[in-house]
């Protein structure tokens, strides 16, 4: 078990996301029923299988499982079938939208943003987690597991920029620090920072590039949140920033990220500029 969790950071991620989904369903009443969740997971796996066949790659269930669990945690819809549609969009985007041999958008992120923009039938409940210290503890614990192996620097950079911006805003407004602290405890934010933004496959290849990327996401999110009062600012900011990743990679070229063991199983893609 220990080896399983250590071997690939995605295993720990799947474990944590599953735990959160179960906790959410049992204790927090998220309003997603088990059958819908199952449909989302199965659709994601099926889409991955089709996409892998199409691209001539070996089927790996881990990435679609993470996308599906993230959707189960975040997406709320007024019809059950929107969940599976989101799963197709999420996993399908990986195969359909690629540049320089890597996918552009975090699958969950782009599926959520697409449905939010194109339909008026889905929503995200950023407040659904409450101000949970328990959740924060779970995510920090998970992050300690995942970060050293994946691209944790972007999470730290993002939390630093975003937290710094919130604290600076509070100081400027003369607000008590309980306000930025309350904003930083938001479960949706922690989930975003812990898992969505740190998806190594869609990040710039160098550390400098990733820090720049984190700053870009934080700046855009700040503008959307505080100039336009957009509650889902983080999701939009991440999707918009992802468009700039190829440019960041060209300016700051580095070695392409691969999940452990993928070089033998999957196809090796040369990094840009080499």
């Amino acid at each position: 078990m220990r080896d399983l969790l250590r071997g690939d950071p995605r295993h720990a991620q799947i474990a944590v996301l599953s735990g959160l989904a179960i906790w959410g369903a049992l204790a927090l009443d998220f309003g997603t029923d088990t059958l819908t969740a199952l449909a989302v997971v199965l659709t994601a796996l099926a889409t991955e299988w089709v996409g892998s066949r199409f691209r001539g790659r070996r089927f790996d269930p881990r990435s679609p499982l993470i996308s599906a669990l993230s959707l189960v945690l975040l997406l709320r819809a007024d019809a059950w079938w929107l969940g599976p549609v989101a799963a197709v969009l999420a996993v399908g985007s990986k195969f359909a939208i690629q540049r320089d041999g890597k996918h552009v958008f975090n699958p969950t992120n782009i599926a959520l943003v697409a449905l939010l923009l194109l339909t008026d039938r889905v929503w995200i409940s950023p407040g659904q987690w409450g101000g949970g210290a328990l959740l924060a503890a779970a995510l920090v614990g998970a992050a300690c597991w995942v970060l050293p192996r994946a691209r944790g620097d972007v999470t730290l950079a993002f939390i630093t920029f975003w937290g710094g911006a919130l604290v600076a805003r509070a100081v400027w407004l003369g607000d008590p620090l309980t306000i930025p602290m309350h904003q930083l405890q938001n479960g949706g934010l922690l989930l975003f920072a812990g898992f969505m933004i740190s998806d190594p496959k869609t990040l710039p290849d160098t550390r400098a590039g990733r820090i720049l990327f984190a700053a870009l996401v934080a700046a855009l999110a700040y503008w959307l949140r505080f100039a336009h009062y957009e509650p889902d600012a983080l999701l939009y900011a991440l999707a918009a920033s992802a468009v700039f990743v190829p440019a960041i990679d060209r300016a700051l070229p580095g070695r392409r990220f691969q999940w452990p063991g993928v070089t033998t199983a999957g196809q090796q893609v040369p990094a840009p500029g080499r």
Partner: protein
Amino acid sequence: MHRVQLRAAAVGAFISCLALASASHAFCGFYVAKADTKLFNDASKVVLVRDGDRTVLTMANDYQGEPGEFAMVVPVPTVLQKEQIHVASPSLLAHLDAYTAPRLVEYHDPNPCEPRYALEDLMSAAPMRSKAEQNLPESAAADLGVTIEAEYTVGEYDILILSAEESDGLTTWLRQNDYRIPDGAEDILDSYLKQDMRFFVAKVNLGEQARLGTAKLRPLQMAFETERFGLPIRLGTVNARGTQDLFVYALTRQGRVETTNYRTTKLPSNVTIPEFVEDEFADFYRELFAEQTRKDGGTGVFLEYAWDMAWCDPCAANPLSNSELRELGVFWVGERPARTPWQGSRIAPQAANVFVTRLHVRYDAEHFPEDLQFKATADRENFQGRYVLQHAWEGSDSCQAADTYRAQLRIRREQEAQTLAELTGRDLEAIRAKMRLDGSVPAPTPWWRNLWPNS
């Protein structure tokens, strides 16, 4: 299942239920409105109509003091024209309040010896009541970096829209003009000023009030456009009078409204509680709310009602008419009476496309540091705070079914006692004593007991 008729208040209409007599399933009722209007004394009521950036805010108060002493200070995003301010009839809010109030529903067990399903339901709703805002008196002009952007008399209110360069000047000006600004409010005023907010300051014009003959202060309304979908509550937490109750009635085209920076939770609903609660529904609901707030750590926002305003089932009050909705600020409904006056059908022929969400927040500065921020979701699933009384059949007929019924009744009553204790935090033993239960539950009837009844 069909509905025959429903009358508004005191006496309800007869409902016939041909479907299964399951309390949790059958949503039919026979209603009596119980006017428990003082349920939450220190509460404010706000109606938020929102579609796109268009917002209409109605603030009601149950201010009981001297009208001359009343004043309110509300941060607003823009300078409002006189036509953007309106005074509404208090009955509108009372109606909306009654329509969305948590309700008590009564069912009567049939005589188990009579092989037919005769079901009669009784329902009563306890609307809630509110009171609001700060207490501030009269003023004159000043020069402390404070700009009086506009000055209107609307109904019985004198209204000023103020902007200021800094909060010091604003606070001084307000205090010089006899507005009682509590200590600690300055920082909050400053924060709003930096966020480019203006202040809507209202007090009562006694002359106008006498002329209009309005004894009670009526709700103030304002219509404006803003990207910000929220409610400033921070000024209200400065007084540190402990917690305060706030009811938000959000009316949208889209669906249910929830808070984005606090968790919105559904209150426990559709549970069967002991019969004696009928006489103390107000206490029950107050205790239930307090207990659920406690369990949630004091940081939760509670959903009490979420429903398409074209209908209700069971109805604590009739849905609001289109003209009432328009007066509340629902600008997208037409003037024509789209609703049938409730004759038989539960669903009005034209959907008014108005979805109401009733949120109840008990807040203080410690647990609610930030102003409430909302979002309208696409969720149109109906929810209501509904509590069920299942009256026992007390006949003396004797038959095998009656024996089984009586045994099951004891189990059910014990269950009701436990539910009540769980919901309200009341002492289980005290509940049992009140219900004359000893806590023991009869042994279940063996499954084979009725297998060969004649053997």
